[in-house]
């Protein structure tokens, strides 16, 4: 399904979008394209606009835009060709291609392997073993899935085998029950005005705007470290879901398959995980502002 009106198709950077088209964008699948954002100024005006203002434009920041269906197909072909090129290079014993592939996926692989086994040292061994498996099996790679999916399939199989050998055999789906049953409120109740107030259940004070932070702050290594710690502190299955979805970048379908979760349960766990990480970042930014 495709979302972007002509206004932003194929464009990047700051783009002026007609109010009408913006309505369409916002009513569409904007959630899947988190790379598209109204600028602050654009948002303020858009909020206040009246229905008659059809020709006004609003400024949006577009960082990446999916292309039309036929072009998406083309992108897939390009990705497949790139995978084939890498695989050919590996088969030919090209060290540079190997190191590049290791650099690209290595850190994520360790992170994913850590979901299955006891500690980082064992996770590193799993990753090592995975690469050996990849090299041994490289002649069998036929490009039916992407190279990345294939790589991580070998990784999770290797990690599962290792976990069983270590006596860790409780499947994620069995652990999920306890995490799903826990219905503590995720956002502190005192963030909202109490019952009886005219604005009951609305914000006591507005959440911190992340895009008001000074340049570079949001994606600084310090911020990333806060997210890392927050993820490490999550209950096991939430950690697994957010790591696979938001760190490794797998689809909900793939994650449901891998962790044997229903679509709905996967979403609830992802929601809990993301909400907690967002809260940790907000606390971190607020503490820094007060200091």
């Amino acid at each position: 399904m495709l979302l972007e009106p002509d206004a932003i198709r194929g464009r990047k950077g700051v783009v002026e979008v007609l109010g009408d088209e913006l309505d369409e964008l916002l009513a569409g699948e904007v959630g899947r394209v988190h790379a598209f954002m109204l600028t602050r100024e654009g948002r303020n005006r858009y909020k206040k606009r009246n229905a008659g203002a059809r020709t006004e434009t609003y400024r949006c920041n577009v960082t990446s835009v999916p292309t039309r269906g036929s072009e998406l197909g083309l992108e897939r072909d390009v990705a497949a060709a790139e995978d084939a090129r890498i695989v050919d290079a590996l088969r030919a014993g090209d060290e540079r291609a190997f190191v590049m592939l290791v650099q690209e996926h290595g850190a994520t692989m360790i992170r994913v392997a850590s979901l299955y086994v006891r500690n980082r040292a064992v996770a590193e061994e799993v990753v090592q073993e995975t690469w050996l498996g990849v090299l041994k099996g490289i002649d069998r790679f036929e490009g039916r899935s992407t190279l990345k999916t294939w790589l991580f399939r070998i990784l999770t199989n290797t990690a599962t085998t290792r976990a069983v050998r270590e006596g860790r055999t409780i499947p994620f789906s069995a652990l999920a029950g306890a995490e799903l049953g826990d219905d503590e409120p995720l956002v502190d109740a005192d963030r909202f005005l109490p019952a009886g107030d005219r604005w009951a259940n609305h914000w006591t004070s507005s959440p911190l705007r992340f895009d008001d932070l000074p340049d570079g702050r949001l994606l600084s290594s310090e911020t990333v470290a806060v997210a890392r710690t927050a993820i490490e502190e999550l209950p096991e299955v939430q950690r697994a879901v957010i790591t696979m979805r938001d760190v490794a970048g797998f689809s909900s379908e793939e994650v449901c398959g891998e962790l044997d979760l229903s679509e709905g349960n996967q979403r609830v766990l992802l929601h809990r995980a993301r909400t907690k990480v967002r809260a940790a970042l907000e606390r971190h930014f607020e503490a820094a502002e007060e200091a």
Partner: protein
Amino acid sequence: MSGELTCKELVELVTAYLEGALPAHDRKRFEEHLVVCAGCASYLDGMRRTIEVTGRLTEEDLLPETVRELLIAFRGWKSADVAGR
């Protein structure tokens, strides 16, 4: 459920919204609230930024030893592969 969404309800629907899992009617209520509520717009934006920050965890550097060990393994594989052909 009908009527206006409260902020407290909206924060629980954020992921379903981002995943495209809200039924059309709920999505409409969600977006109507967003247009008039700066607090929730800010919250949703913060959630998108959080996903962006989390995505950066892939960029951590591998220890040089790890890369070196893998490279040795690669060379071992290559020579065994050549010998095996």
